[in-house]
C-alpha cells in the first residue's frame, strides 16, 4: 500500500517536474480540476465552456480526491500544473490548516454577501451543496416517514433500515432521532455522554440495520425491497427517480449537508485568472443552470430565484429543505474519526 502511495507521489512529482519545465516555457492555460463523470460533464456545459467563451484559455482535468494528492501537488512550492481545484470539505479544512491554498480575498469573487453563509471559508468558496437524506420507496410505503424519529420506529415502519457503514453521519442521525435539535448535534456529540447516547439510540434498531458502503447502494437496496428506509445521498435518489423511473421519496427533515468548494493552490501561477473563474462560477445566472443536470444545491444567494420552482423543490438549497438541516462538521470528524471508528466497530461486534 505504502510503496504504491510512494510510487504515485513519485509519478506525480515526475509529471509535475515536466509541467514546471513546460510552465516556464509558456504561460500555461488555467487548469481547473473537478470530480469527473456526469458531474464534470454538467460543469463543462454550465461553467467551463461559457468561461472559455469570454476569451480565457482554460483546460479541465479530473481527480478522485485525497489530501495526499494535494500535498504532493504543492510540495516543493513550485507550479504543479493545477490551479483551481474542487475539494470536499474535509480536504478544504486540512489543506487550509497545512497552508496549501490561497487565502480567499472575497471581494475578488463577488463579495461574501453574494454567497450563502455555509459557503464561506478562509481558503475556499463553496460551490455546491448536497445532503444525506432519509429515502423511502413511495410505491411501498403508504405513509411517508416524517424524519429520523420514524427511522427508529420499527412498529410504525417494520423492516430493515440502511445506514452508511462507519460512525460518520450515523451518530448525528441517532441524536436527532433521540430529540436533540439538529443545530445542537455537534455540541452534544463533543461530550462523552453525547457519544454514549448516540450509540445507545443505535442499539434500539441494531438488529434491523444493513450497512451500505457506496453511494450507489441505497437506491438498489430500496429497489430490491431489502430495506424500507435508508440514509442516502439526495443526488443518487434523484437520479434513480429521473433515469430509472423509480418513485422514491426524500425526507429532508433533519438531513445532513456538506459542500464542495473551489480552492486555488498556493503554487498556482494563474491566481488572477483563478479568481476570475471562481467569480464566474459563483454568479447566480451560471449556477442556476447546474440543477438542470444534477440535483445539487448551489451557493449564490440569488441563484434560487432563477431556478424553475418545480426543480428547486428537489434541491438541498430550497428554503424548506434547508430549514431543519445540519451542516456536517468537518472539524469534529477530522479530530474524532479514528477514535469513533474504533468505538463503532467495537459496538458493532457486541451482540
Amino acid at each position, binding site marked *: 500500500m*505504502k510503496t504504491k502511495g510512494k510510487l504515485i507521489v513519485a509519478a506525480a512529482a515526475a509529471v509535475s517536474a515536466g509541467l514546471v519545465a513546460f510552465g516556464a516555457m509558456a504561460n500555461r492555460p488555467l487548469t481547473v480540476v473537478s470530480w469527473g463523470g456526469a458531474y464534470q460533464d454538467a460543469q463543462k456545459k454550465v461553467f467551463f465552456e461559457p468561461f472559455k467563451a469570454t476569451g480565457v484559455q482554460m483546460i479541465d482535468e479530473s481527480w478522485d480526491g485525497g489530501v495526499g494528492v494535494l500535498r504532493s501537488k504543492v510540495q516543493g512550492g513550485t507550479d504543479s500544473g493545477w490551479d483551481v481545484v474542487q475539494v470536499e470539505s474535509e480536504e478544504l479544512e486540512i489543506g487550509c*490548516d*497545512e497552508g496549501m491554498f490561497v487565502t480567499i480575498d472575497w471581494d475578488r469573487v463577488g463579495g461574501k454577501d453574494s454567497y450563502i453563509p455555509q459557503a464561506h471559508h478562509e481558503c475556499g468558496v463553496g460551490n455546491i451543496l448536497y445532503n444525506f437524506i432519509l429515502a423511502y420507496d413511495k410505491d411501498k410505503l403508504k405513509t411517508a416517514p416524517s424524519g429520523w424519529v420514524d427511522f427508529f420506529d420499527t412498529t410504525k415502519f417494520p423492516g430493515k433500515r440502511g445506514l452508511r457503514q462507519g460512525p460518520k453521519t450515523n451518530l448525528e442521525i441517532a441524536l436527532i432521532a433521540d430529540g436533540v435539535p439538529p443545530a445542537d448535534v455537534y455540541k452534544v456529540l463533543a461530550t462523552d455522554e453525547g457519544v454514549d447516547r448516540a450509540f445507545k439510540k443505535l442499539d434500539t434498531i441494531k438488529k434491523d440495520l444493513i450497512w451500505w458502503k457506496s453511494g450507489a447502494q441505497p437506491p438498489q437496496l430500496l429497489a430490491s425491497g431489502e430495506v424500507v428506509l435508508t440514509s442516502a445521498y439526495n443526488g443518487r435518489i434523484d437520479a434513480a427517480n429521473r433515469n430509472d423511473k423509480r418513485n422514491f421519496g426524500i425526507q429532508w427533515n433533519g438531513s445532513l449537508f456538506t459542500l464542495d468548494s473551489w480552492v486555488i493552490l498556493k503554487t498556482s501561477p494563474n491566481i488572477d485568472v483563478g479568481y476570475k473563474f471562481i467569480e464566474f462560477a459563483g454568479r447566480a445566472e451560471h449556477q442556476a443552470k447546474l440543477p438542470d443536470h444534477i440535483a445539487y444545491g448551489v451557493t449564490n444567494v440569488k441563484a434560487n430565484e432563477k431556478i424553475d420552482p418545480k426543480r428547486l423543490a428537489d434541491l438541498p438549497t430550497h428554503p424548506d429543505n434547508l430549514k431543519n438541516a445540519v451542516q456536517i462538521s468537518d472539524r469534529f470528524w477530522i479530530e474524532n*474519526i*479514528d477514535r469513533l471508528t474504533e468505538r463503532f466497530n467495537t459496538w*458493532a461486534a457486541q451482540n
Partner: protein
Amino acid sequence: MNPQKELLRDLKRAERRRRLMALALVAPLFLFLMVSFVLPIGDMLRRSLVDTELSEVWPRTSALTKVWVWDRISEPTLEMYRALAEDIRESAEKRTIAVAARRLNYALDNGRSLVMNTGRELRRQAANTEDWRARLVEIDPAWGDRKTWLAIAQAAGPFTDFYLLTAVDMERNEKDLIVRRPPERSLYLQVLGRTLLISATVTLLALVLGFPVAYLVANAPKRVAGLLMILVLLPFWTSLLVRSAAWIVLLQDRGLVNDMLQAVGVTSEPVRLIFNRTGVIVAMTHVLLPFMILPMMATMKAIPPTYMRAALSLGAHPAIAFVRVYLPQTLPGVGAGVLLVFIMALGYYVTPALVGGADDQMLAHFIAFYTTSSANWGLAAALGVLLLTATAILYLVYARLVGIGQVKLG
C-alpha cells in the same frame, strides 16, 4: 606456465561465467521480489516503529521531552513550556503545525483542536512572557496535564511503541506503564480473532466441499475430467466484484435462494443470508475453492490405483482401505490446499466489505481504512505487523504439525 595451473584457471573462469549467467537469469525475478515484496514489508515494519513526524516540526520540545523521559515522575519544567510555546508559534507560522496536531490527536482526545487553537492564539498575541506555563495553561488547561506531556514524550521519537501497543489493544497510562485499553476501544485483538475464525471456517468448508470434487476430477476419464476442470476454474475467470455481486442477488431477502426456501416451505419468512457472517463465509468459500481443489487434485492424480486394489484384495473393508491407505497419500495435497486457502483468506478485504455486515470486517479492512481514509499510516503498519506475525506463528505451528516437507503444491 604450469599447464595444470592454466587448466585450473580456465576451469574456474568457465565456472564463474556459468554462475554469472545463472545469476543474470534470476536477477529480474530477484529484483521484482525486492521491489514488490521485501521493500514494502521492510517499510511497513519501519513505519510501525519509527516516529519522527513530531520531532521534525517541534525539534526543541521533542529534544527536551526525551531527556524528561528518564524520570517521568517529575513535572514538566518551565524550560519545556518555553520550548513548546516557541515550537508551536514557529510551526504555526510555517504552517507545519497541522502535522504535530495530527500526530498528537492519535494519542489525545481533542488533540488536534488543542494544538491548532493554541497555535492560532499564540500567533494572535505574540506578547512575550516569562511564565510560559501559565500562558499555555491559560489558553488550554490540557497543557498542564501530565497526559498531554506523556503523549508528546511518546511521540518525540525516533522510535515509538505507540502504534504496536495500539494494535494489541494496549496503551501507556499516566505513570508510563503499559496497560490494557478501555473495553470500548479494545478492538484489534478481537478483529484478529474474527479474522482467524472466518479464515478457519472457510478453509474447513473448502476442504469438505473440495475433497470429493478433487477425487472425482482426478479419477474421471480424460474428457470428463477436462470438462470438470473447466467448471472448477470458471470462477477464476470472473471478476471478484461480479462474483460477490452475484451472491448478493442470490442471497438477499427477496433473492433466489430465499424464494426457493419459502416455495418449498422450509421457512415462512426470509432467512438472513447476506450482509452478515453467513454471506461472508459462503462468498469467500466460493472464491477460494479452486485453491483447495487444484493441489489436492494434483496429488490424487499421482496416487497409483494399485495400492487401493492391493488393500481391497487383502480383505480390507473399502472404508478402512480408504482411510488407512488412500487418505494418508493425499495428505501432501490436502496440507498444501489448507495452507493456501487459509493464508489467502486471512488477507481478504473486498468480499467481506461487499457481503458482510459491520461486525464481519477483517483486519485488512482496518488496514485499508487507516491507509486511505484517515492516513494514520503508523497504525496501518502496526496492524500489518500484527497480521504478519499471527500468520507466521500459525505457519510455524502448522509446519511442525504437518511437516512442511510433506506439503506439495502440485
